[in-house]
């Protein structure tokens, strides 16, 4: 019991630091949504997300956990952002996913995970000329934002039969968004300004899923996630609530040969539920999104499938929050590849994924190269 309490406390702390990646498309509303997928799945365009036990998307997929497992994911991205106001290059390091799972009896698996729900990490540099006391003064603003909404999930999967598994996940949405606004003036008689605020979030969600294996080579999966209202506080002031989207998805996984595995999924999220609330608060609104991802995994060594398999994938995402008034919400396209290996008799694993991402909408364009590294322990 004590171990469970310590583990839970640790995951709450990890949830506060979980983050996705910085982007100019993550400036508005809740930021850039993130699908919590393992590095293995990431290398295949997220295609395995609904079947992969270490991707906390479909709770039923936990049924594929064969032994106690803990994984830690590191993401580093290099990006070039362009918008009507300029061009900038940057990079950032994030820790998007922590996952632990273990067997609870013969047919049941339980897990806890901390992942990114949305990430609003960015820094904006703004320059303007104001007329102060009859004189023109150039002002230089910098707005830093770090953090976002984190998703702490407790889930379990149950193997109903050899062909069907179901799962249930409870989600605690938490985290904070720390803002640091700074201004300095070209005329030093005006004092610099610094304001620090924090938005903190709290909400609950529920997810259910199933995995069905109609034939030996084919698996089907589906899940539904219902998130409640997200309560928002600015420092200590209550800012009310935001409706969160309903998420549902379906996918299939096909193994045409013993050494080739292909998978894909469609996931939709009803972000437009936030549209009215966001506009009422002075924001630019939100739109529904669809995500398509697919990829394959080729096992180079049939006798040791975990030894440097080759993973390839493509992904297409719609983004929910327009970066600016009068601009669409944006799209994200990505191609990825990955590999991995196990060591210490299968007790340790290291997976790598490299993803090239393009995001664009209107005059906003972004290219990113993301390197994802996953370390797993299976005692």
């Amino acid at each position, binding site marked *: 019991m004590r171990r469970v309490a310590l583990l839970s406390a640790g995951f709450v702390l990890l949830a506060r630091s979980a983050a996705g990646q910085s982007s100019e498309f993550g400036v508005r509303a809740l930021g850039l949504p993130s699908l919590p997928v393992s590095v293995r799945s990431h290398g295949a365009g997220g295609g395995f997300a609904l079947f992969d036990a270490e991707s906390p998307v479909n709770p039923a997929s936990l049924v594929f956990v064969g032994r106690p497992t803990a994984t830690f994911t590191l993401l580093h991205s290099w990006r070039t952002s362009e918008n009507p*106001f300029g061009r900038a290059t*940057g990079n*950032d390091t994030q820790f998007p996913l922590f996952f632990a799972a273990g067997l609870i009896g013969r047919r049941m698996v339980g897990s806890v995970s901390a992942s990114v729900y949305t990430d609003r990490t960015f820094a*904006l540099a703004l320059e303007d000329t104001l007329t102060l*006391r009859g004189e023109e003064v150039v002002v230089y603003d910098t707005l830093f934002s770090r953090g976002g909404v984190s998703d702490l999930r407790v889930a379990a999967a149950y193997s109903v039969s050899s062909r069907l598994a179901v799962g249930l996940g409870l989600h605690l949405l938490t985290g904070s968004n720390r803002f640091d606004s700074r*201004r300095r003036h070209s005329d030093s008689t005006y004092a610099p300004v610094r304001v620090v605020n924090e938005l903190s979030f709290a909400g609950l969600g529920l997810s259910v899923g199933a995995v069905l294996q109609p034939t030996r080579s084919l698996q089907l999966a589906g899940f539904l996630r219902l998130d409640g209202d997200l309560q928002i506080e600015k420092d200590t002031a209550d800012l009310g609530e935001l409706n969160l989207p309903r998420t549902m998805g379906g996918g299939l996984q096909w193994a045409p040969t013993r050494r080739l595995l292909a998978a894909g999924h469609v996931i939709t999220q009803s972000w437009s539920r936030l549209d009215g609330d*966001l506009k009422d608060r002075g924001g630019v609104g939100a739109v529904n999104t669809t995500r398509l991802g697919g990829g394959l995994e080729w096992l180079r060594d049939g006798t040791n499938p975990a030894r440097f398999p080759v993973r390839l994938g493509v992904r297409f995402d719609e983004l929910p929050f327009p970066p600016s008034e009068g601009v669409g919400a944006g799209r994200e396209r990505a191609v990825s590849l990955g590999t991995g290996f196990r060591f210490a008799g299968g007790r340790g694993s290291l997976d790598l994924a490299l993803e090239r991402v393009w995001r664009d909408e209107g005059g906003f364009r972004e290219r990113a190269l993301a390197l994802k*590294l996953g370390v797993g322990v299976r005692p």
Partner: protein
Amino acid sequence: MSRRTLALGTALVLGLLACQEELTVRGSCPDLCPGGTPVVEDIVLPVLPGSDTSHVGYISHAGIPALLVSNGIAAGEARAWYRFEARPDTVFTDEGYKPYTIDSVALTVPLVVRDTLVKDLRVYLHRVSYGIDTTVTFEGLDTLLVEGSLIDSIAVHDTLRRGTLRLVLSGDALSRVELPAEDSGRLAVGVRVAADQPTGVRLGSTLSSVGAATFLTYIRTDVADTSRRRQTLTMPTVANGYLKVPDRVTGPDLLYLGGLPSARALLRFRIPQVIRDSAIPIRATLELEPAEPLRGLRSDFTAIQARGVGADFGAKSSPDLLFLQSPSLQAEGQEVVSIDVLSIVESWRGPRGRPQVIYLSLEPEGGSFHEPVFHSSRSPSGGPRIRITYVLPPRVERP
């Protein structure tokens, strides 16, 4: 897994963690500005009506930092005096007290400030009655500074900005500083100046950093030790003062600073709630409108100091040690005097804000030709005011 692979993986992880983040993207408000455009506002806050007052009596004759002497300037006529310690009629030697013979005497006067644009400046030293003290009037002193009382004058070189002026008397001239027995060896001198045009000077006082005038007597004594035969008797200033006419302009509808005894002023304001609790002041300027041209001495640094107070006890309020200072007041200027008082206004903010009071004084206090007079809230127009420029904090909750 080979050690090589493990080392490679470890190096990769450490390498990524060691990367320095760079997040910045260029943006523009309101297009790409989630908190909205920061709003800058400007407000002019007049002093609370009837709450601005001047109080007199802070620096008296005993505490003056310099002596003023002038001749014909608009800031007024000023004369000064020094009174020296009594000179003994014997000196103590190895052979006991011995009488002495005077070779020469010298009077040194520290010059603190002069107008460097004025040529042919001369400082005149007159012998005056040793009974002179702070009860003397300007007329009483001025009538003593006549040809018959003149000891001598010191020509001040045109290039000298500050330093010690020295007058040496010997031979027959010693009779001008002879100290009769009835005066008990005591000397007092009055000081006036003249130049090719109206001007003034500031001279050192007993409280100034350069010290006051000194009366030196070079003597000879008849003792066996030849190295002790020549000595110098140094008589420092024991009292000094100056008198200036006309007296400053006063009136219930005006605010005045400086003078002797010196005046200070208290101004009370009430900042709006938005500045008190959320807006961020980026500049706050106190503006004072002179009621008459600022009369002073060219090249003489004089400024107004503004301070906050811990508690408002009126004239007995205890001002902060830290002060904010105006630029040097310009003689004959009638421009609005501006003082940046941002740090004082910032101290008024918050639930435990300090009293919204600005405490004004003149620097150097009690030793400046400037005696500025400003309009008050009781004047028909031009009362003190603070111009505050502030920023409303960004609304980061705006998505």
